[in-house]
């Protein structure tokens, strides 16, 4: 390429403007386009996260399964057998593992996105990238781990002879979408806020612990219903998007429960509403992220 070619190529290019993001409009679409253009890099970042996590450990990826399997074991033995929560819940192990798998996805998305910006400070301070890629890469690697757990769950259902093969399996998709949308929305917000206030990452751990018990994962929804009554309290409890997604996921994966336990009415509609509200949150939090990201390089 001659110098003249380079100059004429440059002359034809439009200018990219960088200015204070408080004055920018219509940026949400622009950043979606920008991230889509850099999807290859996003893929490489996800692979980097996954590869580096268990590099140099003899068992590697097996470790990412040890935690949920241990949790399963504890909940199954202590809560299921000792405390008797498994009464009225057939295939209690499948029930618990289904709940833990979908909740684990939410938990991992939120906790790893929250620390993603601070963890990649070396890059953010030195190179311009659309900063959304870091929380999104965390979402990607969380989805990968979710995939592995899902395979184990399916193998377990196969072994127990209750492989989910009916129309209810379709609940899988709205449940997954709701979790991904809500997880990404809060992941984006918290990753940006964490830059300014490092307390957030510790706060998130505590909140995720509370949310685990605020959803019917190791106990059944009707047990909560029995205590909360069927008034407004139950509605608040049920319409927690994570609860809805957990219920939807259990309905898809846990065949033995179809006739054994009660589900809230209009579960699919509730999931749809949760999805739409989640999208609204995602858009709002993306705007917040875009506003906060202008000062990342100097705050890190």
């Amino acid at each position: 390429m001659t110098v003249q070619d380079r100059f004429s190529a440059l002359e034809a290019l439009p200018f990219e403007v960088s200015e204070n993001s408080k004055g920018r409009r219509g940026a949400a679409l622009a950043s979606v386009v920008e991230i889509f253009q850099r999807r290859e890099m996003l893929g490489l970042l996800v692979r980097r996260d996954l590869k580096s996590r268990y590099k140099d450990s003899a068992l590697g990826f097996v470790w990412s399964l040890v935690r949920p399997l241990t949790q399963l074991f504890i909940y199954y033995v202590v809560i299921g057998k000792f405390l008797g929560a498994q009464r009225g819940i057939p295939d209690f192990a499948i029930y618990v593992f289904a709940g833990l798998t979908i909740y684990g996805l939410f938990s991992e998305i939120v906790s790893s996105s929250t620390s993603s910006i601070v963890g990649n400070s070396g890059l953010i301070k030195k190179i311009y990238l659309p900063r959304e890629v870091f929380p999104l890469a965390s979402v990607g690697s969380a989805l990968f781990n979710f995939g592995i757990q899902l395979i184990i769950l399916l193998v377990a259902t196969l072994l127990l002879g209750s492989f989910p093969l009916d129309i209810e399996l379709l609940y899988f998709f709205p449940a997954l979408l709701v979790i991904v949308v809500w997880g990404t929305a809060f992941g984006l917000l918290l990753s940006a806020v964490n830059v300014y206030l490092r307390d957030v990452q510790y706060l998130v751990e505590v909140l995720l612990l509370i949310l685990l018990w605020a959803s019917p994962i190791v106990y059944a929804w009707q047990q909560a219903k029995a205590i909360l009554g069927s008034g407004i309290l139950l509605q608040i409890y049920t319409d927690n998007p994570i609860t809805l997604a957990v219920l939807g996921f259990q309905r898809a994966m846990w065949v033995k429960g179809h006739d054994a336990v009660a589900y809230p009415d209009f579960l699919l509609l509730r999931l749809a509403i949760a999805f739409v509200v989640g999208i609204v949150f995602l858009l709002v939090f993306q705007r917040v992220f875009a506003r906060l990201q202008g000062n990342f390089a100097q705050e890190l």
Partner: protein
Amino acid sequence: MTSPDVVRINDVAKRFVVRKDNSLKERLVTFGRLGRNHREEFWALGGVSTTIKAGTTVGLIGHNGSGKSTLLKVIGGIIEPTIGTVERRGRLAALLELGAGFHPDLTGRENVFLNAAILGLSRTETEERFPEILDYAGIGDFIDTQVKFYSSGMYVRLAFAVAVHTDPDLLLVDEVLSVGDEAFQRKCLDTIRTFQQEGRTIILVTHSLGLVVELCDRAVLLNRGVVEFDGDPAGAVAAFRDNLEERRVAQEAASTIPKKALPEGHVASAAISAVNGGVGEPIEPGSDLSVRVRLEAELPVTDWMCALQIDNSMGQIVYGTTSKRLGVHLTPLHGDREVEFILRDVRFGPGKYFANISLMDSSGRHLHDLPQATSFNVPDYKLAVGTIHAEPEFVDHTAP
């Protein structure tokens, strides 16, 4: 050949806010109006406007904290301006820190692909250029080793190799040329010269003023966030040197630490000029230099001599002599005394020079030193650089 604008900086200002409270508790305690007391703001850039044309190499110079690195980061889009806009076009590669984005646990090969993607190359483009990158870095079979086992030189070479193979139209460089061994630095400079010939635009932040004069077509001098000089590199460097000298003198005057009590005999002051010229005028090569030194002694000092040393702006000694070397026998020093060194036919290269004056006893013990007692400038010389002056000629003996 007309060259288009690559970067347009329109009245850019950048404010930094420094908070003293960084945890939730402190933030809550100092919430609201009280919180204002817990933050300090300062303007790192105070309204910079300039345009950079394609194919030029621009040096950004200024003392520490003058805002040059901030300006480079604003141009690179890494930080947003508080006020104003920056427009830029073409593919950008920022070498603010070599190997930013290298992950220690990944192999060299994996890092090359990751880093190239971060700098905007697609996978197929990286695959095409991979042999070139490997060859340029010269790390051989280590490419499949995790980079945490690399020596720092290998790390830097690989990172630089990736950055220069991304085909940037605009290259931002911040002091990274000072890392690596000499061979690597030369390679960097060669690459930069090739880039210049290929019409790429380079913006360089450096403290090496020699490099600015040698490499740049244009230099921008920043002082406290505003452009103080924008034009030919030699002029910018000269302005910068004067600037630094003013700061040094001002700092010395403002210093609140009480000076140590002067010894009985001490150097009071010194002034430099050409023998026929005034103090502060530039010293032309070939003129005679006069260094007038004022000495004071409350009690008589019988055994003494006076020493002169001239340093260049990098602190290297370029000249030194003493009254003893000149074979002068001095009567005891008492009260005020003025002595003069006259250096005939001095031929210093362009730049700023500092004179240090010492009062010593005859065995060479320092009784009192006055470091950087005074300074002088030698005007720019188009035909050569360096600390000595000589008129160059060039003869082509076997021209066809």
